[in-house]
C-alpha cells in the first residue's frame, strides 16, 4: 500500500517541531528579542503562497479577486521580511564585545 504524501509532510512538520525545540532552548536569553524578530521574519516565507496566488492564471487575470489578495499578502509579507531581518541585524550589531 502506498503512503499518502501528507504523511511525509506531517513527518517533516513533527521533526521540525523537535528541531525547533532543541534549537530554541539553546538560544541565549539575552538574544530572546532578536529571536522573536527573526522568527517573525522567517515566518514571512508565507510570501511563497502570496507569489503563487498573484501569478495564477494568464495576464488578463491579474486583477481577479484571488490575485489581488495575493498582492496584498505580498506587501504584508515583504514589510515583514525586510523589516524583520533588518531590525534583527540592527539589534545584533549592538551585541558586540567591547574592546
Amino acid at each position, binding site marked *: 500500500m502506498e503512503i499518502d504524501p*501528507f504523511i511525509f*509532510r506531517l513527518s*517533516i*512538520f513533527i521533526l*521540525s*517541531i523537535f*528541531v*525547533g*525545540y532543541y*534549537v*530554541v*532552548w539553546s538560544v*541565549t*536569553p*539575552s538574544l530572546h*528579542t*532578536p529571536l*522573536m*524578530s*527573526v*522568527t*517573525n*521574519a*522567517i*515566518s*514571512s*516565507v508565507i*510570501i511563497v*503562497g*502570496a*507569489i*503563487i*496566488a498573484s*501569478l*495564477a*492564471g*494568464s*495576464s488578463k487575470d491579474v486583477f*481577479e*479577486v*484571488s*490575485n489581488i*489578495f*495575493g498582492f496584498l*499578502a505580498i*506587501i504584508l509579507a*515583504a*514589510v*515583514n521580511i*525586510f*523589516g*524583520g*531581518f*533588518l*531590525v*534583527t541585524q540592527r*539589534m545584533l550589531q*549592538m*551585541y558586540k*564585545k567591547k574592546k
Partner: protein
Amino acid sequence: MSANLSALFYLISGILFILALRGLSSPETSRQGNYFGIAGMLIAIIVTFLSVGNFGIGLIYVLIFLVIGGSIGAFIAFRIPMTAMPELVAGFHSLVGLAAVFVAISAFLKPEAFNLGTIGNIKLASLIEMSLGAAIGAITFSGSIIAFLKLRGIMSGSPITFKGQHFINLFLGLSIIALIYYLCISQSSNIFWSIVLISFLVGVLLIIPIGGADMPVVISMLNSYSGWAAAGIGFTLENTALIITGALVGSSGAILSYIMCKGMNRSFFNVILGGWGANEQTSALQNKEQKPVKNGNADDAAFLMKNASSVIIVPGYGMAVAQAQHALREMVDALKKNGVKVSYAIHPVAGRMPGHMNVLLAEANVPYDEVFELEEINNDFANCDVAYVIGANDVTNPVAKSDPQSPIYGMPVLDVEKSKSVLFVKRSLSPGYAGIDNDLFYRDNTLMLFADAKKMTEEIVKSL
C-alpha cells in the same frame, strides 16, 4: 523548474532557517545566523518565481509590491527606537497573520492555481488545512493588533473583563471547529468567510482580558500562533519551507511563553484567563501609610556607590519608559573609573518582551558579558555592596519568598535585599503591575530615590 527540484530547494531554505535560529545561541555567531536566514528567504522566493514560471505582466506587479512592502519594512526597521521593540514585534506578528489569511482566501477562491482541486470541489485535506491556517492567522492578526495598541498605550493596559467572557470564547472556539466541519461538507464560501470573521473576533476577545505586565507572555504566544498559521498554509501549499518554518516559529514562541510564565510562577492558562492583581490591590494599599521609608537624594546615592567595591544594577521596564539606559551607562562608566565592579541583573520578565532589557543595554553599549540572568547572578547579591534598582519593582519583591498569601508567592525574584544597601529609583511608592506593595521599600538597608529614572541617574553622574 520541476516540482522535485523546487522541493529540494525549499528544504535547503528550511535548513538555512534552522541555522538562523541556531546562530542565536551566542552573540558572536548571531550575525552570521541572520545572513543564513536572509539566504534562505532569497532561495525560497526565487525558487517560487521559477517554479510558477509565469513571467507575464503579473510578475511586474509582484515585483512592484515587493519593493513597496520592502521599503516600508526597511524604513520601519531603521527608524524604530529600541524601546519600541515590543510594539514593533506585535505589529509584525499581525502582518504575518493577515498574510496567512489572505493566502488562504486566494487558495479558497482559486484552488486550481495551488493544485488543490476546483472551486466547490477542493480536496478535503486542503480545506481543513487552509481553514485552520486562515483561522489561526486571523486570531494572530486581531490579537496582535490589540497587543500592539496596549503596548503603544493607545489602549489602556488594564485588563478588560466582563461576565461570561471565557464562556463566549469557548463557544466561539467550538463554533469555528463546527464551521470547519460544515465547510468540508458544503464547500460553501459563506461558511469560509464566517470562519475568518469569527476568528478575528476570537483574537480580540482573547487578548483584551490580559494586563500590561503579562505582555511578554502575550507576545510570545502570538509569535507561536503566527508560526502555526504559517504551518497550516504550508500544508495547504505542500511547501516544505513553510512547514519547517511554521514548526520552528511555533515551537520557539511556545518555549518563550513557557519561560515567561515560569518567570512569573504562573501557569499559561492563568495568564490567558487574565485579570491578575485587580482584586488584591486594595488591601495592600491600606496598610502602606504607617510604614516609614528612608528617603535619599542623588548625592547620597553617589557617595554610597563610589565607596562600594561592587554594584549590581537591576533594570526594569521603568528604565525603558524613562529612556534611562544611556544615562545608566554613563553612571557605570564613572563608577568603573572609581574602581567599582559593576554588573547587571536581568529578570526573565523584566520589560515587555523576552530579552527586552538586554537589547536596551546593548543599545547603550553595555558589553553583554557584564549582563547576567537571574540564576547566574542571584547568589552574588549577598556579597554585593549596593544594588541599584532602576525601573524594576515586582521582580525584586521579597514577599514572593516569604508570604504564601501574596499573589506573586513563588515567583522567582532577584535577592536584592541581601546586598548591603539597596538604592531604589522610583517615582512614588505606588505598587507595581502586580498591584502589590513591595516590602523592599521599608527595609532598613533600602534608600528610596524618588525621581524619574533618567533624571536621577543623570544627577548621580554629576555628583560622581
